[in-house]
Every structure is written in C-alpha cells, then in structure tokens.
C-alpha cells in the first residue's frame, strides 16, 4: 500500500497518554511535536515541583527536547496517542509559539499542585490548556482515561494569543 505523501510530509502535534503506576492508575497527558519525518522534536508537559519552604508543590509547564524530558519508565507506561494537528511547518511553528505563550502564563500563576484534589489543577490541566491555546480540539477519546484535572483550562476568559 502506498502512503499518502501529503500526510507523511507534514508536521504534526500529538497528545500522548501514559499510565502512572500500572494498569488502572491515573493517566498523564502531555504534548509531542513531530517533524515531517515523524521524529519527536519537542515535548511540552506539566510538572509538580517541590517547594523549598512549603509542603505544597508547585505546578509548572515546560518545553524541551524529548530526550531530556522522558518520563521515568518505572512509573509511566505509554498507552495511547492522538494526533491533534497535521499541516505545514509555518502553522506548526505558529501553534508551538501559541503553546509557549500559554506556558508562560501558566507558570506566572504560581499554581499549587494538590494531588488529593482530583478536580484541581494538574499536569493534565496543562496538557489540555496547551491544546486550547493552540486552538485545537482535545480529542474525545483522550477523555476516556482517568486523568485527574484534565477538565481545567488554565487560561483567563479573555485569553488572546499574540500569534493567532
């Protein structure tokens, strides 16, 4: 079967889902950017970071190379991925810039991460927020996982991207 050259030559953005601590554990969503060859180029995800002077951890979003942001294998098992964008490189970079812009906003809020609050902000909230910031759709299939906090969008009502 021949592959569709239009499809294989385009850049793409994906939601990756990993399960924490084995089957049935909570899911962790994060975002992967792939180039026209299908290679992983950039990853964006949420992190819970210990604070020096408080037991309440901080929630932050980061961007980096996939190799430097690999989730620890002993705790995370990749279980699904969903393509949410495929297109030309210029639009791909535009989406990436829109996501970076949202990362800065998220981090400026200095949010708390409280895992016991299943409706609170979490790394899953950051993944969903980045999808929204890129003006893409969060795939319905990705909502089937138990991913605490994924409903929460960390953007104000009047959010407007400078890159839209």
């Amino acid at each position: 079967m021949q592959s569709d050259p239009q499809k294989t030559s385009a850049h793409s953005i994906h939601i990756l889902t990993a399960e924490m601590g084995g089957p049935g554990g909570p899911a962790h969503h994060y975002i992967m950017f792939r180039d026209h060859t299908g290679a992983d180029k950039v990853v964006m995800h949420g992190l819970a970071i210990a604070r020096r002077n408080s037991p309440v951890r901080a929630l932050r979003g980061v961007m980096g190379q996939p190799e430097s942001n690999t989730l620890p294998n002993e705790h995370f098992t990749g279980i699904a991925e969903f393509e949410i964008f495929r297109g030309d490189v210029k639009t791909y970079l535009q989406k990436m810039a829109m996501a970076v812009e949202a990362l800065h906003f998220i981090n400026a809020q200095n949010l708390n991460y409280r895992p016991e609050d299943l409706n609170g902000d979490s790394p899953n909230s950051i993944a969903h927020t980045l999808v929204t910031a890129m003006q893409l759709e969060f795939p319905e299939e990705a909502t089937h996982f138990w991913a605490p906090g994924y409903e929460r969008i960390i953007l104000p009502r009047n959010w407007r991207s400078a890159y839209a």
Partner: protein
Amino acid sequence: MLNTQDPDIQGYANCLNTAPTVSGVVLEASSSPENTAGNFNRDQYIMPDASENKVTLTPQPLGMTMG
C-alpha cells in the same frame, strides 16, 4: 521549504527561544512561596460532558495571582 526570512517565522522562533525549560522552572518554582492568593478569572472551559466532576469556580479579580 521553510523561509527563515519570513517575519512570522522569525517571530515564532523568538517566542520559542524563551520557552520555559525544566532546569529553569525547577529553580524558580522550588524557591517560590505557596500560592495563597487565589486564582485568576476562569470558569467557562469546564468540559460539557464532565458534569459528574463539575466544579464551580468562583471568579476572582485579576492581578491576585502572583505568589
């Protein structure tokens, strides 16, 4: 072909160069105090099919968010 002289492309590249990194964020977040100031104004993005988990967020004035 990517036109690196394209002003849009240059603008995106400038933005991407400012992206938060793991090391930078860990350093900044670890020394930040707990956020006790509330939150910014948001309430409309709850997924419509998440009624079981729906939470009511109380809008807060903007500008109360920095810890």
